């Protein structure tokens, strides 16, 4: 397109800004079965069923706002008035056929009660000028959906921004660099493409056999029960040569750590952290700290064992941030300090989590339940839908804040996809706190990092009660 054509195209797109689509009414009112499905899907691994359950008044978790008016598995009839549909069609026809969700911002005016019937009305807020990003050239399209109940009361809003683009072709320079990288990679001797293999003696084989079995074993004297790591061949305490082992609980705290940078090791993926952890049993171990951004690693942090297959034939016992327990007592506004760090929470992105999350948020896009469809979209496996990410982010803050805290908003930016098999670790820090009438508002800045980078960054706003514990 020429510059003039570009301008004309943008004008056409922007002619839909401010227009509103037909109101979409939910097929069912807010109901306990859908709430329960959502709560089950968003439950953290190992979390007690009670804390993951709907609240005692049976109200819907706020982050379910957009769920009720989703079309479900039966495609909705095409809305000829929908300005987003129009704009998307025009973009597709012009070759901007790829699309990703980039920002989502929700405001929850109040929790939804069972029986409320929601209607969502979408309007087109903005179409950006043509932008060039790492993904390609395209347009950011922002829509706003306003939700009302059957009485016409406004209950919340959802602002959603997509990037509709033509995938960027790699430049010659990039292709040359890629080729050079491949050539360099080909020159590395094969044995340096995998981590150094452990050397074993008869007396240390138990440790590595345990590692292969996904266990962490600590040498234990059969005579006096003394533990030793690294293993000895004779118990220095009682003199016994009869040495066995015990299986570690997998609980540990971080004693010290380093982040190697140079020289680069071809068999390591950077960045990585090596830690010395103190096991609950008392011995220490050199290991890797995984599922945690290096800048969030802290001496003293609680850790849990996670067995990792690093290379074919090599499984190693590693540690990651221990999942924190869900707070059963509600924090008071006065207890919260700006700068306070929330405990890290690793979440395994399993197929089950992705599919359960997609269905519970009534998102039946095939990329979230059919691996072949995800591969057609250019990803190696299923990946998480946005409303599940939304749910997990709000639950993360809720689990820290306690059951009586109410989440009133979320504003997140989406990045690297959460692909099945990965682990996302949520972290957060209290960014601001504001006293309101009879309650206090706390904004938590959070990020969810996975192996590919930041899956999500943004804020969750939560309201806390004031004063002493009731």
């Amino acid at each position, binding site marked *: 397109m020429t510059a003039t054509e570009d301008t004309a195209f943008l004008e056409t797109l922007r002619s839909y800004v401010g227009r509103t689509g037909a109101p979409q009414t939910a097929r069912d009112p807010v109901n306990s079965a859908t709430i329960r499905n959502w709560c089950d899907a968003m439950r953290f691994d190992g979390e007690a069923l009670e804390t993951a359950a709907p609240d005692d008044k049976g109200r819907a978790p706020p982050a379910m706002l957009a769920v009720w008016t989703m079309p479900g598995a039966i495609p909705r009839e095409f809305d000829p008035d929908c300005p987003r549909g129009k704009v998307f069609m025009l973009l597709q026809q012009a070759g901007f056929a790829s699309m990703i969700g980039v920002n989502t911002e929700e405001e929850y005016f109040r929790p939804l009660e069972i029986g409320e019937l929601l209607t969502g009305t979408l309007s087109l807020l903005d179409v950006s000028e043509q932008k060039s990003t790492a993904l390609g050239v395209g347009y950011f399209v922002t829509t706003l959906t306003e939700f009302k109940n059957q009485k016409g009361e406004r209950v919340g809003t959802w602002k959603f921004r997509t990037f509709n683009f033509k995938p960027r072709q790699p430049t010659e320079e990039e292709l040359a660099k890629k080729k050079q990288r491949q050539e360099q990679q080909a020159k590395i001797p094969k044995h340096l493409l995998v981590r*150094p293999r452990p*050397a074993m003696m008869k007396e240390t084989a138990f440790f590595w056999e345990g590692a292969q079995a996904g266990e962490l074993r600590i040498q234990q004297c059969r005579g006096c029960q003394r533990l030793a790591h*690294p293993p000895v061949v004779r118990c220095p305490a009682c003199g016994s040569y009869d040495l066995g082992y015990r299986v570690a609980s997998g609980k540990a705290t971080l*004693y010290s750590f380093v*982040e*190697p940078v140079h020289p680069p090791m071809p*068999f390591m993926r950077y960045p990585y952290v090596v830690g010395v952890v103190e096991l609950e049993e008392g011995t220490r171990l*050199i290991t890797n700290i995984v599922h945690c951004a290096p800048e969030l690693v802290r001496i003293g942090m609680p850790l849990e064992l996670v067995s990792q297959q690093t290379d074919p034939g090599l499984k190693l016992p590693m540690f990651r941030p221990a999942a924190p327990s869900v707070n059963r007592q509600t924090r008071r506004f006065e207890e919260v300090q700006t700068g306070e760090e929330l405990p890290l929470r690793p979440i395994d992105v399993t197929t089950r989590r992705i599919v359960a999350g997609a269905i519970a948020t009534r998102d039946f896009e095939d990329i979230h339940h059919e691996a072949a469809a995800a591969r057609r979209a250019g990803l190696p496996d299923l990946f998480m839908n946005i409303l599940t990410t939304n749910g997990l982010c709000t639950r993360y803050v809720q689990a820290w804040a306690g059951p009586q805290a109410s989440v009133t908003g979320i504003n997140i930016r989406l990045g690297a996809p959460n692909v099945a098999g990965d682990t996302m670790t949520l972290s957060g820090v209290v960014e601001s706190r504001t006293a309101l009438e009879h309650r206090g508002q706390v904004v938590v800045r959070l990020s969810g990092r996975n192996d590919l980078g930041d899956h999500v960054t943004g804020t969750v706003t939560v309201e806390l009660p004031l004063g002493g514990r009731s």
Partner: protein
Amino acid sequence: MAMSFSGKTAIVGIGATDFSKCSGRSTLRLAVEACEAAIRDAGVTPDMIDGMVTYTVDDNHEIDVCRSLGVDRLTHFSRIHHSGGAACGTIHQAAMAVASGAATYCLVYRAFNERSETRFGVGVQERAPLPTPMEVDFSWSSPFGLLTPASWVAMFAQRYMHEYGATTEDFGRVAVACRRHAANNPAAFFYKQPITLEDHQNSRWIVKPLRLLDCCQESDGGQAMVVTTLERARDLTGKPAVIRAAVQGSCDDQQMMKSYYRKSITGIPEMGLCAEQVYAESGLSAADIDAAVLYDHFTPLVLPQLEEFGFCKRGEAKDFIRDGAIEIGGRLPINTHGGQIGEAYLHGMNGIAEGVRLVRGQSWNQPKKLDNVLVTAASAVPTSALILSRDY
């Protein structure tokens, strides 16, 4: 426990090659050149040498060195293990040999092309997983990507920072002091190249929390010394450096650079054991030490050495060094040759030579008063230490 040879032996000759990044000659040639220079400096002749001590990790066989030097008869030869921890241990061994009569003039040497041929800094990832205790030992760390000396030391540094509130700037002050001293030493690789704390803070990461300027150099070169009894030394022309104390130390749950399993890892117990012995043996205390050559493969472990040898309290080295105490003119100038950070990495052997120069009054950064100098070998391994004194 008094050592029978305290004050009875001395270093009477020192000799070194040039220190470079590429010597252009074999390690054997470097060893022989250094030995020849040391023999000449001592004012003796090769036929008088009858003892030889080096490191187990040295590639140059005593017998090969002898053939080129023209040393015909050896009545004592031994080697000390544990890499840089051997440094003062070689002098300890030579001193025992001459004190006992096992040898009369003992050569001590170390030579390598550590930069141009076999670099230690690149890591241990190429070692074969053989079922030997040494390889088994590497297996507790190597599969996790903890592969380089810098990374092994960084683990101690991180914990030290956590417990005592030290910062990477405190580590940087050690590098600044060493480079300041090297700047005055024409033999130093970094002659006339001092650095600022800002340079240190701007240098790139090697292993967080260690930066490039926290790491010593990698060098090619050779260093040798001649040890004999003080009685014989007094008949030679040169000024002897009296060995007031020479000791080795290894402690509970000792590991090679990875003694992370001890109750506390912020101190260096084997250095503490050396400190206890050198002071007992010499009858001196920290207050009597006028300068020190503290092993500086990596800056962070210089701090706990100051603590173990009693120059300050535990955890307070960061305060001790803050105002130039370890620089020339300060309470305890350290590494007046520039250390392994500034002069060259010779596995600690060049530091012993600097100890001798200090006693002789020949350092490029000579303190006004110098009666006793402390020299240490590598930290985080089984190690050794010396007190060298004027013949007062």
